[in-house]
């Protein structure tokens, strides 16, 4: 920054000093702009990108949620779209399914990567290979990974991978995606397998930052594995755990591709319909883009509300 400000400073010094305070202010502002031209130019690019591809669609979506387009005519309808969406019998089913998925994903998708990371951290040999193995599913395109589950693992006949394993163990087989009770657990299993690689790597990085002396001290005090995890590992990784929990919840609430591919959409008796999928259904199958926009705004408000409460709680803790 020192290099960029120098030419501007020289040019400013060579001009006559402005006589009035207003003139001085303008010159000072102009100098600031010139000095930071590069920064502003780069900023304009980023702001334009956000404005065009994020903020404008968001504002447009909010506007659309209060409008209705019929026969090419758009009219303002106030809260009608929201009332209609609230009245949709699938609305509460979709929220129930989405919350159920989020809770299951927290139990499975959040805890499993943490314990896998702890396990990997304990290995002395082949660490690199194991990390690659854990991360490999992340490199698969999500659609391909889900098709693998759909046709190979979740085949409801005895030929399916999971059913073959269950049968070999003498356990009852499952209909997987064809059973309304198993739809959500099956989607969480697939989703966890697909996505845990990234979380494991983040946890591993956090684990490696914990000073070894803390564990040594705990061991000297007679702490076993679980007490070391509880009193050293978890407190030391608390911030990263908190951050990932929030990201996980926000991501899982937007559940979409899993029902679309694994359940061919709504699944058995609407058991896979998520809020994001319901938005898609209204927008693209029910000729109801305005209703879809209203549902999108409701989802935005819920997620923003959750994030705000969460940030407030974690800020207090810190």
């Amino acid at each position, binding site marked *: 920054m020192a*290099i*960029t400000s120098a*030419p501007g400073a020289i040019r400013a010094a060579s001009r006559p000093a402005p006589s009035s305070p207003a003139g001085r202010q303008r010159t000072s502002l102009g100098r600031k702009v010139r000095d930071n*031209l*590069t920064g502003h*130019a*780069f900023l*304009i*690019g980023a702001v*334009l*990108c956000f404005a*065009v591809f994020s903020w404008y669609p968001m504002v447009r979506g909010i506007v659309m949620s209060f409008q209705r*387009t*019929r*026969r*090419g*005519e758009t009219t303002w309808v106030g809260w009608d779209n929201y009332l*209609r969406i609230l*009245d*949709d*019998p*699938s609305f509460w089913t979709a929220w129930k399914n989405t919350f159920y998925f989020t809770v299951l994903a927290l139990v499975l998708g959040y805890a499993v990567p943490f314990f896998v990371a702890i396990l990997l951290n304990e290995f002395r040999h082949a660490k690199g290979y194991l990390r690659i193995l854990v991360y490999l599913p992340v490199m698969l395109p999500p659609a391909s990974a889900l098709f693998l589950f759909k046709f190979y693992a979740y*085949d*409801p*006949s005895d030929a399916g991978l999971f059913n073959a394993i269950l049968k070999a163990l003498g356990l009852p087989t499952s*209909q997987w*995606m*064809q*059973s*309304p009770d198993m739809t959500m657990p099956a989607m969480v299993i697939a989703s966890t397998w697909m996505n845990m690689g990234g979380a494991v790597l983040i946890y591993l990085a956090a684990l490696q930052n914990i000073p070894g002396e803390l564990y040594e001290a705990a061991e000297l005090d007679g702490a076993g594995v679980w007490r070391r995890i509880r009193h050293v590992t978890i407190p030391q990784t608390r911030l990263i755990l908190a951050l990932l929990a929030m990201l996980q919840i926000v991501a899982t609430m937007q559940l979409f591709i899993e029902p679309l591919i694994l*359940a*061919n*959409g*709504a*699944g*058995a*008796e*609407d058991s896979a319909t998520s809020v994001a999928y319901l938005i*898609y*259904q209204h*927008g*693209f*199958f*029910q*000729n*109801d*883009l305005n*209703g879809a926009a209203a549902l999108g705004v409701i989802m935005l408000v819920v997620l923003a509300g959750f994030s705000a409460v969460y940030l407030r709680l974690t800020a207090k803790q810190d």
Partner: protein
Amino acid sequence: MSVPQYRKAAALALVAGLGLSLTACSTKSDDAKNDASGKVTITVDCQPVGAQKELLQNWNDDVAEFERQNTDIAIKSVSVGEQCNNPPDFTARLAGGTVTDVFYGYMTDLQQVLDSGQAMDISEFANAETVPTWDSVDPALKEVFTDGGKLYAVPVKNYSMGLVYNKVLFQQAGLDVNNPPKTWAEVRDAAKKISALGNGIAGYAEYSAGNTGGWHFTSLLYSQGGQMLTADGKKADFNNAMGKQVLQNLKDMRYGDNSMGDRQLLQWGDLLTNAGAGKVGMFIGAPDTTQAIVSQFQGKFEDWAMGPLPGQDGPAKGTLGGGEGYFFKKGLSPEQVKAGLKWVAYQKLTPGKGQFDYARAKPQNYPVGLPQPLLFANGTEAQKQELELRKANANVDTANFAVFEANPVPIKGEPRNAQAIYTVLDAAMSGVLTNPNANIDALLKTAEDKVNQLLAAEG
């Protein structure tokens, strides 16, 4: 260039680039209505994709010949995917205003196209002058694309559903290949025998996802004599004895007889993949599903035959008809509409040309002889010519469709707001096909409430 200048230049280039990109994005891509040579230019979608080499070549040949015959018209072809109307893509194109000047749609799309404000009234242009066979086109099909007395599209395909069955599996199961089941009780009996062949074969297969479940529910309901909506179109009318019978028949086959296979939640491609692999004994479909089984799912024409849609205690009381057409984008000049109509007429509605160029299709092994598309009214000159050409060039055994053709079932159209209603009915279909304890009354009641809500919202 010094480091700061370099950075500034890079930053300014970035901004300029972004600005240009955005300008490019916002610029409407539709070319001038008349090109430099004074030709009327129209864009048309549904050009086959690159992977469909022969079909693409046929299309391009048709364009070249049409332009040779009409030197004042230039056709710009646009491919929108193998399935010309994948509903989500179609909706996005409509909402974004990026449909072509002349664009393909299903009969069920009229309402959506009108709501989007993209449809042009072509009533005053569609006549024997622009479409020479116009007076032969079945008036019932024109009616489907008419709203408030105004015509918005030209029909180019029409079908009705029947029972499609695999002759090889029929023979193996000891069934008469020339006498397909005529009632749902006979279907159930045949399905049991076919599924007893084992090897993962489903005696009867049915859709229950991706809107296709609701689509077939409609046809099954029509076979019972039912209707999806009340006569005024304002309420659902399937939660009754006939609707319950439809679901009960399926539940009996799925869980009573275990004759529908393990894998459910099927949609179009899933079922036809299984059919192409010889794993499906029967399903309901239009004649051209056999074409899809062969061209896309590696099946064989000679394996498939078709009978009329079965009824509950005798012949079916109705079957679902559907089809496709070409809409015209609002704002076209009269010259463009006329040019578009001429093109559609040439490629889709002229015996011996385009889709009716059977002499070209025969050696390419595309099916000739299917009882479809039913575009021309009975007794018209165009129908006579089309049937003669079809017969002369048939490369599929027309006897396989003889029972279907000899036993016509009254055709009923799709309900208002069909795609939205089909989405709702998927849940009822998936319910009886995936849950042995499914409560049919509850499934239909839920679907009825949802459809009524949809219709109320439509106003």
